[in-house]
C-alpha cells in the first residue's frame, strides 16, 4: 500500500510542480466568479439559484473532467516517452501498483479541487440568496422549490406482457398479422396499444393511481403532485379541465384540486399532509372534467404522475451530488491512465475524449439508437421501412448507447437544481457502474496490457 501512496505522492508532486494544480484552481475560481455575471435566469429568484447551481457545478465538472483526462493520459505516457518510467520500473513496484498509484494521485487532486469548487459554489449560493438581498417571499419560494431534497414516488404500474402475448398469438392464428411484419415489432405495437389504453382518460371518465409513501412522514410534510399529459387537442393548444382527488382507497374526500392545464409540460400542486393516510398508501384520482372542448387525456409512462416528498436537507443532497461528480471523475481518471499506459499521449487523449463525448451526446445517441438516423414514417404496405445505412447506423448507435446511457443517466446535476433527491441508491448505482464496472474493466485492461508492454526501449 505504501508503494501506491508513494507513487500517488509522486504524481501529486509532479502535478503541483508543473503548476497544473495552481492553474486549475485559478481557472475554477475565475469560472465560479465570472459565470454568475453572465448567466441569465428566468427572471425569478428560484430560477436564478437553479441556473447558478447547474451551470457553476457543470463548469466545474467540465474543467475537472478535461483536466483529469489530460493529466491521466499524460501521467504514464509522458513518463514512458521521456524515459522517466525507467526509474520506477526498475524498483520493486508492480505495474498494478504503478497504475493504482497514478490513479489515486489524480483522485487526490480531484478531491481537493472539487472540494474547493463545490465549497465556493455553495458559499456563493448562500451569499446570493442571503437575507436582505432577496425578499422574504422569494426566500420562502427558494426554500420550497430549490433548497430541498424531494424523493420521487411512482405509482404501481400494470404489466401488459401477458395480454400482449395472448393477443399476438390470437392474431397470428387468425392470420391478422402481415407476413412481412416481424413478431417482435407486432408484439411491441400491441403492448403499446394496451399501455396507451390503460393510461388514457376519456372525457368524463376517471383514472386512479396508488402510491406507497413513507409511513413516518412528519405532521407538516405536505407533498407535491407533479403530472404531465398529452391530449387529443394538443395541436390546438387548448387547456383541459380536470379534477384531482387524493386520500384513502374509498375516501378521496380529504383533498380536491380542480385545474385546467395545458398539455405538453409539467404541472404541479401541493397535496396537504392531512390527505395522506397514516399507512402511507395514497390513492390519487383524476377525472377528465372538460366539457367545452372534450378531449382524451393520456398520462403516458411511469413518471407521468409523480409524488415528491421531502427527504433530507439540501446541503446533504449537495454533498451527495459532489460525491457522484467525484465518482465520475474517478472513472475518467481510470480511463485516462489506462489509455496513457497503452498508447502515446495524443492517441490516448483522443480515445478518452471520444468516450467523454459519448457521455455528452447521450440524448442524441439514445434518439438515433431508437429511431435510426432518418425517420421513416410507417407505411402499411412496407412493414419494415428501412435502409441499409440506417440499419448499420442504428446498430452502431445501439452499442454506443449501452456504454453511454449509464454515463448520461448518472448525472447528479439533472436532479440537484430541481430539488430532487440524489439518493444513496443513486450513489450505489454510480459506484457499481462507473467505479466497479467501468473503472474496474478499464483498470483490468490497463494493467493487463501495461504488464505486457515493453517500456525500457
Amino acid at each position, binding site marked *: 500500500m505504501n508503494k501506491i501512496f508513494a507513487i500517488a505522492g509522486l504524481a501529486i508532486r509532479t502535478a503541483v510542480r508543473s503548476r497544473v494544480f495552481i492553474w486549475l484552481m485559478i481557472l475554477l475560481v475565475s469560472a465560479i466568479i465570472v459565470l454568475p455575471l453572465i448567466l441569465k435566469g*428566468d427572471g*425569478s429568484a428560484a430560477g436564478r439559484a437553479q441556473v447558478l447551481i*447547474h451551470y457553476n457545478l457543470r463548469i466545474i465538472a467540465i474543467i475537472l473532467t478535461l483536466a483529469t483526462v489530460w493529466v491521466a493520459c499524460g501521467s504514464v505516457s509522458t513518463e514512458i516517452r521521456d524515459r522517466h518510467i525507467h526509474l520506477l520500473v526498475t524498483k520493486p513496484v508492480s505495474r498494478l501498483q504503478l497504475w493504482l498509484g497514478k490513479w489515486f494521485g489524480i483522485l487526490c487532486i480531484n478531491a481537493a479541487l472539487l472540494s474547493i469548487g463545490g465549497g465556493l459554489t455553495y458559499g456563493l449560493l448562500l451569499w446570493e440568496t442571503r437575507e436582505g438581498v432577496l425578499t422574504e417571499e422569494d426566500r420562502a419560494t427558494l426554500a420550497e422549490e430549490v433548497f430541498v431534497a424531494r424523493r420521487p414516488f411512482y405509482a404501481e404500474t400494470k404489466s401488459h406482457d401477458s395480454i400482449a402475448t395472448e393477443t399476438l398469438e390470437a392474431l397470428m392464428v387468425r392470420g391478422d398479422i402481415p407476413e412481412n411484419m416481424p413478431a417482435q415489432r407486432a408484439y411491441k405495437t400491441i403492448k403499446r396499444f394496451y399501455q396507451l389504453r390503460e393510461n388514457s382518460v376519456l372525457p368524463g371518465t376517471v383514472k386512479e393511481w396508488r402510491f406507497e409513501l413513507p409511513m413516518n412522514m412528519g405532521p407538516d410534510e405536505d407533498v407535491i403532485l407533479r403530472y404531465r399529459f398529452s391530449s387529443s387537442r394538443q395541436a390546438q393548444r387548448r387547456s383541459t379541465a380536470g379534477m384531482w382527488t387524493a386520500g384513502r382507497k374509498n375516501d378521496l374526500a380529504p383533498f380536491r384540486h380542480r*385545474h385546467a392545464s395545458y398539455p405538453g*409540460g409539467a*404541472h404541479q400542486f401541493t397535496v396537504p399532509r392531512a390527505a395522506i393516510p397514516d399507512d402511507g398508501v395514497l390513492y390519487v384520482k383524476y377525472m377528465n372534467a372538460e366539457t367545452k372542448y372534450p378531449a382524451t387525456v393520456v398520462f403516458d409512462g411511469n413518471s407521468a404522475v409523480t409524488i415528491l416528498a421531502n427527504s433530507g436537507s439540501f446541503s446533504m443532497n449537495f454533498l451527495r451530488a459532489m460525491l457522484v461528480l467525484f465518482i465520475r471523475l474517478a472513472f475518467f481518471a481510470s480511463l485516462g491512465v489506462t489509455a496513457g499506459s497503452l498508447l502515446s499521449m495524443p492517441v490516448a487523449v483522443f480515445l478518452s475524449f471520444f468516450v467523454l463525448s459519448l457521455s455528452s451526446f447521450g440524448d442524441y445517441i439514445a*434518439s438515433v439508437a431508437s429511431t435510426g438516423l432518418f425517420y421513416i414514417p410507417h407505411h402499411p404496405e412496407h412493414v419494415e421501412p428501412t435502409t441499409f445505412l440506417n440499419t448499420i447506423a442504428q446498430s452502431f448507435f445501439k452499442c454506443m448507447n449501452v456504454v453511454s446511457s449509464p454515463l448520461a443517466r448518472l448525472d447528479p446535476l439533472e436532479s440537484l*437544481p430541481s430539488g430532487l433527491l440524489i439518493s444513496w441508491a443513486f450513489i450505489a448505482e454510480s459506484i457499481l457502474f462507473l467505479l466497479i464496472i467501468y473503472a474496474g474493466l478499464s483498470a483490468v485492461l490497463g494493467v493487463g496490457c501495461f504488464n505486457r508492454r515493453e517500456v525500457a526501449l
Partner: protein
Amino acid sequence: MFQPTRGGVIKAHERDFLSDILCLLTAAMCLWAAQARHGQILEQRAVHELVQVTPLENAPPLVAFTTVALGGFRGLIADLLWMRASRLQDEGKYFELVQLADWITKLEPRFTGVWAYHAWNMAYNVSIMFEDNEERWRWVVNGIQLLRDSGIFYNSGDPQLYKELGDIYKQKIGGITSEKNQYFKRMLAKEMSELLGGGYIDYDQLDPALAKRMIKDHKLDPKIMREIDEEYGPLDWRAPSSHSLYWAYRGSRVAGPGGHVQCDRLINHSLIDAFEQGRILLLPESELVIHTPNIDILPNVIRAYERSIARHENKSFPDGFVSFLKDAIIVLYSFNRKEQARETHQLLLARNPDEEIEKSFSRYVYINSIKTTRAISETDATMYVEGAFYKSFFWLALGEEERAKGYDAMARTCWKQFMKAKTPEMIERMGLAPAGELRKRAMARAMGEFGEPLSGRLKLLAEKMQAEDKE
C-alpha cells in the same frame, strides 16, 4: 553555448531575445498589412457574392467571436443546445430555457426564425404552463425581451422580427385568448404608468433622463413615438395596441418605401384595437383597468387603411377596411357621436356600392346593435334596451359622460325602432315597457351589482339626476 561576433560573443539568451523581437515585429507588420486589406477583402467578398449574409456589425465581441471562430460547428452546438432545451421543456424544467435560448440565438444571430421561435415559445408555450399570474407574465416578458433587446438589435433591418414582437403585444397581451389577458394588460399599463407618469406624452416637455431610460430599458424611442403620435395619435401608451403599432411601424419603416405587407397589416389591426380599446381608465381605488375606445383617431385609421390599399395589391386590406367601418359606426354612435357615425355610414356606402348595406342610418344602428336583421321578440328587445341603459350607467359611474349618453341614445333608438313597426294592437299585446321604466330597472340593477367605488359614484349621480329632474 557561445557564438563568435565582431566584438566577441553573444550569449544564447541574448540571441533568443533578438529573434523574439524580430518575430514580434514581423507579426505586427503582418497584422497591420492584414487590417489594411481587410476592408477591401470584405468589399470583394460582397461584390463576388462569396457570403450569404452580411457580417454582423453591431455584435459584442463574444458573439462576433463565436460566430466567426466556431464557423460551421456553431450549427452543431446550436442543435445540441436546442435538443437540451426541448428535453428540459418537456420535463417541465423551465429555469434554463432563457439561458439556452440566449445561447442558441447568439450562435445563429442572423437566423430570424430562431429568434422568433424562442420568443414565441417563451411567451406562449412556456407561460401557459404556470398557474400563477406573476410567473406567466414573467415568461411573456422573457419572450418580449429576447426579441426587443437582442433579436432586433442584431437584425435591425429585418421587418419580420418587428412584426413578431408587435404580434406578442397585440395577441398575447392585447388579445383575449389567454385567460390571464386582463392581468397582462394591467401589468403593461402599470409599467408604462410608472415610466411615463400617465398614458400620453408631452414630447416638448419630456425629461431627457426619462427619454434615455425609455430607450435603454424599453427600447422606446421618443422620436419615433412622436412620429407615430403625430401620424396616428394621440395614443395612450399604456395600451398594448400602442406598442404593437410602435413595433409594426418600425418594421414597416425599415422595409423601405414599399412597406411590408405583414407590418402594414399589423399597423392597421393595431389601429383598430387602439380605436376600439386604446384608451385606458385606471381606477385609483381598485386594481381595475378599463380599456375604452379612442374614437378621436378615426380619421387616422381611415388614412392608414387608404394608404395600405394604395400600397399593396392585397384583398385583405379593402376587406378589413370595410369590416372596420361597419364596427366603427356603432362605436361612434355609442359615444354619442351621431354626426361622425352618420358620415362613416356614408363612407361605408360609398366604398361598397355593391354590398347590401342598410341605407337608412337609424335602421343600420338598430340592426347592428342587436346583431341581427331578423325581427326580434319582445323579450330580446327588452333585454337589449335595458342592457344598453345598464352600460350607460356603467360609463356614467366611470365619469365617461359622452359614452354614457351614447348608450342611452342607442337604447332609445332601438326602443323606437322596435316600436315603430308595431300597430297599436300589437303594442298592446307585445309592446315594450316605456323607455323610462326600462331605464329605472337598469339603474336599480346597476346599483345592486356595481361594487364600490362605482356604486357609490352612481348613487351620487342618481341623486343629482333626481334633483335636476325635480327642478
